[in-house]
């Protein structure tokens, strides 16, 4: 029983993390039809930026609790700097091209950013730690479930995942911009003809998507050592989550994250040998049963 509870807790924590790293990907795909491999690099950028900013914060001798602000600031910085630069500087010249070409454009971008990160931060693994060993990961204390200790930081992950998902769902369904966005998702050309500024919507979407990738990286940074290549590890995982849920679907990403998270936690506890491919196995099974993922709209056939 206690093991089952541990699986649930571990699974939910991991799912929240997965959702945070995957939600930006599904948003960008949903609106722009770009499967953004560079999402992994933006995630890494978020992590590296937060190491730098938290380091500055701690070194200035400021109260450790403020490091959470630095995490948030890193994500916003990544979104506001990298997002517009990439969208205005590169992607906007590529709209209308084949989906696969767009994937490769972001792949090229991913390669470039990987080396850029290396040039800026070097190859040594970095982590966030204050002069007295403080870290946003352990500052909040622990909670206990089923005889196991968990840092409260895990609750932050869960809260951020729920808040992000909720805010996006609310914005899409209830705000004017959200409705315009849905119109663009549904039919880009007609929306443009009706006077919606599609270019602006793409710009804003990509910036928000980049920011969400940054949030993922910034929130991950305190729990890991931030190292080159971390983006590559995450991107396939995020793909799997998004594809299982249905590309471009917000509830899909949530459900996908939950399934993958729980399956992986169960594998680790009960059958560690299969952990390695459990995720891809789930992905294959879901795609075989529901070719376009769990949540997917019907597509218009062209004649």
């Amino acid at each position: 029983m206690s093991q089952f509870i541990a699986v649930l807790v571990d699974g939910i924590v991991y799912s929240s993390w997965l959702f945070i790293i995957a939600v930006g990907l599904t948003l960008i795909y949903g609106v722009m039809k770009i499967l953004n491999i560079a999402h992994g690099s933006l995630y890494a950028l978020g992590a590296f930026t937060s190491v730098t900013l938290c380091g500055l914060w701690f070194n200035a001798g400021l109260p450790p609790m403020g490091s959470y602000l630095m995490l948030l600031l890193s994500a916003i910085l990544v979104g506001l700097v990298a997002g517009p630069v990439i969208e205005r500087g590169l992607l906007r010249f590529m709209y209308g091209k084949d989906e696969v070409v767009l994937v490769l454009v972001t792949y090229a971008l991913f390669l470039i950013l990987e080396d850029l990160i290396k040039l800026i931060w070097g190859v040594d693994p970095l982590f966030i730690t204050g002069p007295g060993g403080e870290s946003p990961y352990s500052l909040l204390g622990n909670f206990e479930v089923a005889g196991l200790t968990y840092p409260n930081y895990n609750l932050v992950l869960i809260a951020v995942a729920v808040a992000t998902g909720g805010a996006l769902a609310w914005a899409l369904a209830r705000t004017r911009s959200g409705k315009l966005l849905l119109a663009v998702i549904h039919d880009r050309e007609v929306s443009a003809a009706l006077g919606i500024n599609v270019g602006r919507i793409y710009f804003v979407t990509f910036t928000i998507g980049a920011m969400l990738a940054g949030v993922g990286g910034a929130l991950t940074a305190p729990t890991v050592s931030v190292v080159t290549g971390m983006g590559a590890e995450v991107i396939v995982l995020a793909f799997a989550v998004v594809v299982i849920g249905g590309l471009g679907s917000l509830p899909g990403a949530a459900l996908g994250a939950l399934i993958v998270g729980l399956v992986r936690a169960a594998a680790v506890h009960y059958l560690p040998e299969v952990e390695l491919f459990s995720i891809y196995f789930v992905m294959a099974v879901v795609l075989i049963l529901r070719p376009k993922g769990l949540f997917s709209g019907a597509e218009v056939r062209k004649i």
Partner: protein
Amino acid sequence: MIAKALGTMLTGIALAAIAAAPAVAQQKASVKVGFVTFLSGPASGPFGVPARIAAEAIVESLNAGKAPAPYQIKGIGGLPIELVVIDEAGGATKQVSEYRTLVQRQDVDIVIGYIGSGDCLAIAPVAEELKKLTVLLDCGTPRVFEEGSYKYLFRTRPHATMDAVAATMYLLDNRPAVKRIAGINQNYAYGQDSWNDFEATIQVMKPGVDIVTSQMPKFGAGQYGSEISALHSANADVVHSSLWGGDLEAFMLQAQPRDLFKKSVLVLVAGEPYLHRLPGKIPDGTIVGARGTNGVFAPDSPLKRWLVETYKGKSGGVDPNYPAYSTAQAFLGVKAAWERAAAKKVGSAIPMGAAKNVKEEMEKAYQPPTQEEVIAAFEKSTFDTPSGKVHMTLGKGHQAVTGTAYGTTRLENGVVKVGNIKYYDADRVTPPEGVSSLDWIRSGFKR
């Protein structure tokens, strides 16, 4: 159109061939060493870049003739060393192509490098085919010389079997009561081998121990929440781990606040390079090794002080870790063999009492030794390094053995210190020639 395309392609090939043809052979002015190490990816931080820094520092110092005895001759045999550094990232397939490039297009004299075991296995037969003296730097797998026999290939550091054997001896010496064993290792060849060796060793040395769980997270997984819960629930006395790099650091960062190590002693077989990086995160009482008497385990000597000093000059004050010691072993092994071959040549060429052709004979004797002569001097040799003496005894004289050491950590004034160090002689922890590691362990360490 097609004819044109074809024409362009073939002309291109021909032009490139002419342009890249090696210059007319000249008098040897330097020893060109191809150095292959991870410059990107997860292995670059803890292993690849320290190895590169060490290589650059060592080459600079050797070229200036600043190394202590017996390495005070400039460069290698008086010839300056020229370094060509290549990234090891990209997998074995690309590394084989790059190796061919190094040897055939760059025309290097010696290749030193390779940290990944897969890369070492893949390079081995190619080195043999291209007949190029190649020294493997750091890879752990015992398979290279257990499965093959090579003339041009050397490995100047011991393989990974002794990690597990010595760790078990140390563990049982210090905590004879252990009953419940768990492991967390990366799910790839090295992680699997490391755990299998450890599991086999402890079952031979202390029959009846319980293996309670073996966690095998994906390489680069980053998130270990579930694994830590599983290890926690397993109530193990000992957690064995060969994690390294970002994975090890992430695991430590996540496990430490969760009190995992209040219950279980941690054994880090590859923990040495992280001691200075993780103060406060490595719990006191952790058992660490460095595959050989490297780093904190290296006995004091002029050579060790030389390495520490030259390395610190290049690294901005950071102490060398064991990949840096491995690099020193490779360069010094080659240098020792080369210079011994040169000395032998001169020694045997002095024409006793001969009056004819003395000048020609002497000139010939002072030519740099051929590759074959260097190899002959390298085989079964023994040489001094910053980590003590290295003996090339396994693999028909091509695979090094050294003793190793384990110790226990404790935090002192914010610095991780290693105490209670125990040294293990090479023949206690390394299988004899011709016996595979796992067979040797299962045979109860028969010699």
